[in-house]
């Protein structure tokens, strides 16, 4: 499955033991795909001596700050952009 720019996606809320690049503060949050980057080796397996293959597409995803931090005190339009690997993203309705 791949995603297109503008598509709404949800960050998987699963736990993961060991190295991974998905920030805890994003798990379960819904955002919008801003860019589809290239594909990269998977740091979750590469960190432990594996090849990191298959490569995973990395997406820049935009989240509303107010969704991410319930007590966010900035402006309502402020956003946070985070690179998230494809296997951490789900379709959002």
């Amino acid at each position: 499955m791949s995603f297109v720019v503008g598509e709404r996606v949800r960050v998987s809320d699963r736990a993961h033991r060991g190295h991974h690049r998905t920030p805890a503060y994003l798990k379960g949050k819904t955002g919008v795909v801003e860019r589809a980057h290239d594909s990269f080796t998977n740091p979750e397996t590469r960190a432990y001596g594996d090849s990191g293959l298959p490569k995973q597409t990395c997406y820049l995803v935009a989240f509303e700050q107010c969704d991410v931090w319930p007590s966010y005190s900035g402006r309502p339009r402020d956003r946070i952009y985070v690179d998230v690997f494809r296997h951490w993203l789900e379709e959002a309705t």
Partner: protein
Amino acid sequence: MSDHEHDHPHSPVTFGGEPPAAARVRALEELLVEKGVITNEDVRRGIDWLVSRSPSDGARLVARAWVDAEFKARLLENARAAALELGLDSGPSPVVVALENTEDVHHLVVCTLCSCYPRALLGPPPDWYKSLPYRSRAVSDPRGVLDEFGVELDEDVEVRVVDSTADMRYLVVPRRPAGTESLSEDELAALVSRDSMIGVALPETPAVASSR
């Protein structure tokens, strides 16, 4: 656990006088050299290259973007290709992405997981960039952080924090200060600080720069 008494638990900070991570890296390096994968000379040259990079490289890109709209478009589209036009090679990996600050949008870059930074174009990151307070607060309270850095933004500017968590590195192209129409590209580059390319400062104005 630590061998000293205080209010939080953590792993030993040192191991025989050497931090564990440093010991591991040294062991790996020795092994790679022993197996002929790399040489000590390769390591030395790699370190030399990294520490020889400086924010003046990034500043050259920004200044060129300010004076040449087509170059700016190419920089935002493909930062490495644009940098190569100026003889600067950011390398194939990690991929550098340039983000433009505008009247309406201000970007602030952080790496919450560690210290990801466009070293190839800015040199080594400042210590505060790697500190826990910056990494945690930049994402959750960017306006508070900007305020502490002395950045005043217009009320309706959207703050976009970019958390560099994976294989991409972000470089902010700050807004060109007013009153710089008559400056040369080199003079403009001198106004572009490292911090303005991280997003925690605005470029200097000509008056401030000349009073230094």
